[in-house]
């Protein structure tokens, strides 16, 4: 999964104490393949190995961290899309949404400052697509709204309000009027928003 990147990210500082276990060629490769700089990758490595139990830290590059451990990260803990994020970035064959180090790097790369808006919107689309069918249909949008309004009962929108909201969204974004929003429509809408690039950022 190599997505092209623009200019290199962070600076070229020292290797860093905890990063001594990360082989040099791998570091170079990761810098090529992601939007992250050297320091950021080393920091990510450190955070990743902290999630592993002590015995597995030697082999951090090939170990997989279970989903519940990933969700303890502060950046994901309060995020309403935490499960979707894990599902989208995980390459696990068993469907248990565990993440390897490369999945982790992938995630950080997409959410970093230097990622392009195209890449971000591509992944955002996948995150919002709850049933993984390649389009955002009504059910997806309803689930999205429920995620955004929090888990409490009082804060949910009533059925009438939900109807009205989905109606308005489809009016605005669904250009071919097929009742769903596909990737290009989504990117068309989101690329015009001034807020998208600002908010879709994680920092370690």
């Amino acid at each position: 999964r190599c997505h092209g990147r623009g200019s290199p990210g962070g600076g070229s500082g020292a290797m860093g104490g905890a990063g001594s276990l990360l082989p040099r060629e791998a570091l170079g490769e990761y810098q090529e393949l992601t939007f992250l700089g050297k320091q950021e990758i080393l920091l990510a490595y450190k955070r990743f190995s902290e999630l592993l139990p002590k015995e597995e830290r030697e082999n951090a590059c090939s170990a997989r961290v279970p989903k519940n451990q990933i969700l303890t990260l502060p950046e994901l803990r309060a995020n309403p899309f935490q499960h979707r994020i894990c599902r989208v970035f995980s390459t696990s064959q068993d469907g248990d949404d565990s993440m390897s180090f490369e999945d982790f790097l992938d995630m950080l790369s997409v959410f970093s400052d230097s990622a392009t808006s195209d890449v971000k919107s591509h992944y955002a689309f996948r995150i919002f697509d709850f049933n993984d069918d390649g389009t955002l249909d009504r059910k997806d949008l309803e689930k999205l709204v429920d995620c955004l309004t929090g888990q409490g009962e009082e804060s949910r929108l009533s059925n009438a309000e939900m109807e009205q909201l989905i109606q308005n969204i489809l009016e605005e974004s669904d250009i071919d009027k097929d009742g769903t929003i596909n990737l290009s429509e989504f990117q068309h809408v989101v690329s015009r928003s001034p807020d998208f690039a600002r908010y879709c950022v994680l920092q370690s």
Partner: protein
Amino acid sequence: HFGSSVASYFIFLRWMYGINMILFGLTFGLVMVPEALMGKPYGSLPRKTVPRAEEATAMNFATLWDFSGFAQYSVLFYGYYNNQRTIGWLKFRMPLSYFLVGVGTIGYSFMIVIRTMARNANEDGGGDDTSFNFSWKMFTSWDYLIGNPETADNKFASITTSFKEAIVEEQESRKEENIHLTRFLRVLANFLALCTLAGSGYLIFFVVRRSQKFALEGLENYGWWERNEVNMVMSLLGMFCPTLFDVISSLENYHPRIALRWQLGRIFALFLGNLYTFIIALMDEINLKASVLFLFTIFNRHMCKDEDFQQLEEEKIVKYNMTIWEASLYNGTIPENSTAPPIQVDPADVPRGPCWETMVGQEFVRLTVSDTMTTYITILIGDFLRAVFVRFFNYCWCWDLEYGFPSYSEFDISGNVLGLIFNQGMIWMGSFYAPCLPAINVFRLHTSMYLQCWAVMCCNVPQERVFKASRSNNFYMAMLLFILFLSTLPAVYTIVSIPPSFDCGPFSGKTRMFEVISETLEHDFPSWFGKVFGYASNPGLILPFILLMVLSIYYLNATSKSYKEANLELKKKLQSVRSR
């Protein structure tokens, strides 16, 4: 969580606090501190000493709370200041400073209000692209930097509110109405509002007349209610009439933002009417006393030699009494050529002249304090106790208190905004007579911010129909500007037309307060400056200047209109390029 309109109130409050800090700095640093440090100390002059008769009660808490006693004869009020041209080793010109600070606070306030309005208008002109309003809210509103669950909860709540706001906007823009019924109901509502205003005005008038009657008969005979009747009635009217207006406005069926503006306008008219009735009644009181004594002097005219009717008659009586009293010190003989040295008398024993400026200042301070107390008590009882009652008695009550009556209260935006604006109007009106007012107001705003913030988060629920506040605060600013203009009229009138009290204050002895300027020009500036100033203040020069300013305003207005049009054209071009 509570929506952008509640937030706009707190932002407005914070901005007002900034202005009051500057006003406080001016009055404190340039008026109160110099007089306290370099002026004659307490007890050296009659105007600076508590009269013998009041000395016994001067330190009581009740007297101090009422701002009489020691509080009255201190730097807090106009009457304490001496009319010496320069004081201390710095040769600080106290009367000039007092005058300039008074004028400067008003000038500064005008400048900053207009500057803020202009800045807001600039931001407003940018406009927003609402083509993908809902979609953006949906896809781009979550802030991925949030890591704290509590912050996340707040963000959820604010997103929900924002959705609801947008939905309401959309619904309102699609509503159909039955025109005739709506029009009839609106006319009816306006009629009811007018009746309320008229009733409130009459009530204030009635109460002030009664208090004047009490004052003539001597206040000691009456209890606490009679003494504070005017303040209490004004505060109570301010509390209940807005609720009445709220009920009336439910007849009108406007978009919530427009309904808020009507509400603000009506409460504005209410407070304005109350305040001006109050002022007129005060002026009336001074004139009432003066005119009663004037009738007495008609019969005693053979004792008064000069007939200078420019002075208030009461002052003449007092001056006459003072000469009699001085004579009594010389054991009954009125010396024609007084070659005897003046006898030392304790300043507390000297009879005093009336000091209407201090009286007016005291009334404003009392009104501000009682207004503050009423607001805090309303918050504590109306919001906090009500919330406690609903929360804890819900278990053992027949109907659901949280959904039916009384339920939790909502934050009353219009009442609070107007309270803030009118409070500021009172400060502007009264700070010339009571330099301590900005200080009191800074303290009040400070505590108000935290108290209301706590009350909103703890006891209020968001409104049922939240709506987006208008982009700029210019509506509030326009009202503030209007109030500022009206508040400065009384002060300007007194400076220009009414002679200052002869016995107290920094302008005592002059026929008009603004004479301190001409005095300064004479003494402190070289003579050619005075001549130039004389030429410059010639009406023949000022009128063309005013005409020139009006023409330049017209020209600037025309150019700004043409810029706006060019702006719109460019925006349209941009849009068509983008969507290609």
